[in-house]
């Protein structure tokens, strides 16, 4: 990607399943202060623009962007909201900086899912009101359908899916942000409560609260602000069809095409050799494998065995979700791209402590917006600029 943009600061709160003592505004404030400090920003007044990522129904407030500026220091500044994953916010900030009109842009996303009493009910409202909603199907059943199809077409197995859960929850032990680290066996995963066949309870990420703030800058400012800027080499985002009837069930096109777009920008011809580690959406365990294959990291049906051979482990050839992913840390919904970006930055800066990878020059983060959507986004981060 020409016209380089880097992340120069990150801030986040400690993820927790319940946070009754703080409001979302207080969480964002804490993350913002930490991010601005990390970016060595003399003042929040030096920031040219702000982007937040949020959805009204999850926040419980219509036109939620009303409540975004104060806690970020964004009052009377250019600021807007994107209804997308935090990675969509990163892509937005990159574009804003590349226009030449803004030098420093802040991206924020948060999860206060503990405030949401009926998440499944709300997700149900994301289905087509005329064709799908009257069927009154729990939206997680769409994930189960997707999983059935994926296993059938790819010949990956339930055991492979269980091994994803085991790996990610084990990785999470080495991440101080994790809320759901656990030692499990294949049998325990598969025998956990069946939700929507073939999905079981332990194959689905559990919600946690947390806020993430990142400071992005153009090359000139980035080099001045931070000794270890992390460069954004490519962003690719794609939406497939929102309707269940017309989407690509077999090919996971939102991941495939978003990867291709990001690779093009990052001038990556062979992602299998040019990317060192991956933080991939694992909202449901099978999604990690499905997304890795769609992103071209493994050929169709090959990810499961690679996983069994240890290739996705921290010391394997394709370390995937070393952070523990959302299965191990917890899902922040649209803020989950924040967890992935934090891990990217820590690994690329060499600050990942006990889970620091030996080789971490280029990493790929991929987020999916969850059921019933087909929107995905790939961001490629690198220690070195273009």
């Amino acid at each position, binding site marked *: 990607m*020409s*016209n380089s943009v880097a992340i120069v600061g990150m801030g986040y709160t400690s993820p927790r399943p319940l946070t009754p003592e703080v409001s979302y505004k207080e969480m964002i404030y804490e993350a913002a202060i930490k991010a601005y400090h990390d970016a060595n920003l003399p003042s929040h007044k030096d920031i040219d623009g*702000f982007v937040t990522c949020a*959805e*009204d*129904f*999850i926040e*419980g*407030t*219509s*036109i939620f*962007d*009303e*409540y*975004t*500026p*104060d806690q970020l220091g*964004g*009052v*009377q*500044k*250019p*600021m*807007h*909201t*994107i*209804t*997308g994953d935090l990675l*969509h916010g990163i*892509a*937005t900030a*990159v*574009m*804003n900086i*590349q*226009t*030449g*009109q803004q030098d420093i842009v802040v991206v924020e996303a948060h999860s206060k899912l503990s405030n949401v009493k009926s998440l499944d009910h*709300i*997700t149900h*409202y*994301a289905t087509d*009101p*005329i064709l799908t909603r009257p069927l009154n199907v729990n939206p997680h059943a769409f994930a189960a359908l997707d999983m059935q199809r994926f296993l059938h077409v790819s010949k990956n197995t339930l055991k492979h899916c269980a091994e994803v859960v085991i790996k990610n929850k084990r990785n999470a032990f080495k991440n101080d942000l994790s809320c759901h680290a656990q030692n499990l066996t294949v049998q325990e995963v598969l025998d956990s409560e069946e939700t929507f066949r073939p999905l079981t309870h332990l194959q689905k990420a559990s919600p946690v609260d947390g806020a993430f703030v990142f400071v992005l800058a153009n090359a000139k400012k980035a080099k001045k602000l931070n000794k270890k800027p992390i460069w954004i080499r490519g962003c*690719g*985002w*794609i*939406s*497939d*069809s*929102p*309707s269940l009837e*017309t989407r690509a069930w077999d090919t996971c096109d939102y991941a495939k*095409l978003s990867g291709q*777009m990001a690779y093009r*920008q990052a001038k990556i011809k062979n992602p299998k050799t040019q990317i060192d580690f991956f933080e991939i959406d694992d909202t449901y365990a099978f999604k990690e494998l499905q997304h890795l294959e769609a992103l071209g990291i493994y050929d169709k049906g090959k990810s499961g065995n690679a996983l069994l051979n240890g290739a996705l482990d921290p010391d394997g050839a394709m370390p995937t979700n070393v952070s523990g992913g959302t299965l191990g840390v917890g899902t922040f919904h649209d803020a989950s791209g924040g967890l992935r970006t934090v891990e990217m930055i820590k690994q690329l800066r060499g600050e990942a402590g006990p889970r620091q990878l030996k080789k971490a020059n280029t990493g790929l983060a991929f987020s999916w*917006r969850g059921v*019933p*959507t087909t*929107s995905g986004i790939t961001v490629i981060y690198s220690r070195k600029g273009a």
Partner: protein
Amino acid sequence: MSGKDEVAIVGAGMTKFMRRAKETPKELCFEAVRAALDSAEMTLDDIDCVIHGTAPDAFDGIHMKGEYLSDGSGAFKKPYMRGYVGGGTGVFSPIQGWYHIASGQFETALVVCEEKMSSFQPHPQGAFLTIFDNMTERPLKPNLLWIFALEMNRYMQTYGITIEDIAHVSVKNKNNAIKHPAAQLGKEITLEEVVNSEVLAWPVHREMVSPTSDGACAVILANKKRAKKITPKPIWISGVGWNLDTSYWTNRDLAYPQYVENAARLAYKMAGIKEPKKQINIVEPYDPFAYKECHHLEGLLLADKGKAPQLAIDGVTQRTGNMPSCPSGGLLGVGNPIAAAGLMKVCELFWQLRGEAEARQVPGKPKYGLAQAWGDLMQVGTVIIVRN
């Protein structure tokens, strides 16, 4: 890259604005997109990315409404992003399209704005109950008419403006809208009829407030290289600006929209406009209420503080005046499907600056046009400046 005059509008289309559309939200989007593509003689294959603007999900009762609307908006297997700043969304969406292209990442962009307010029963005003702070304000059960009545009152009190002064804006815009084929509320109306209409929340009268509407608009943007190939009459985006004020609207003086001025100053600076009163030939300020046109003309630095109503009284802002304001008929006349209403203003500038506004065409040879939208808790200003 500065972004100035590097991105052009090359096509525009809209649906009719109406109280209750029979079309689904997706179908409204489709209709607007079809019209925009046809106007530029393009197909979806020519579109690199899609931007969607729509305000609260509560209207349509659809969570992640942007996702639902994506295929109707032509985003099938394309980069697609929905942004929003409440009522300011309609002018923000083309700004979003502008930065997609000005970043150098895309050559063309389709910008779609849709709102279907009639799905909310019995009246979409109910959806606005959920925009207020859930601890400090929502228990008071405020609605938008009340808080805008507060702002209108403050504006009138500060500058000694009367209801009659402001009513001139309603007369102008509703009469202008008669000539807009997509208008919902164009009508011949007199000053007396406006002033004597029902009081909804003092000092807001029925004929001083825009209707609730269903509708969609779309524009197509292209970079320099593509724009010149697509049309001999591209309309260039010279300046953009957006600005969001504090959530704590009760803590600031409502007499003047500082955030609109901030957004306008960004846009003027980018466009190289030093004397906006002289250089801006057509203006489409956001007019969901009659006083808002005045309020915004002042924030845009196109009128002195407290003097904007006089422009309507003197005929300066008439379609044939020196600085036509809302020649489309504005939200008061054409209608107010929130996000789509803002983009309707940008469509109007596109048609006016290309000389294609037919019966609404302003006389002379206008060069610069400015569209502005406003929203949230009287909090956000979005401004775009275009030229031919």
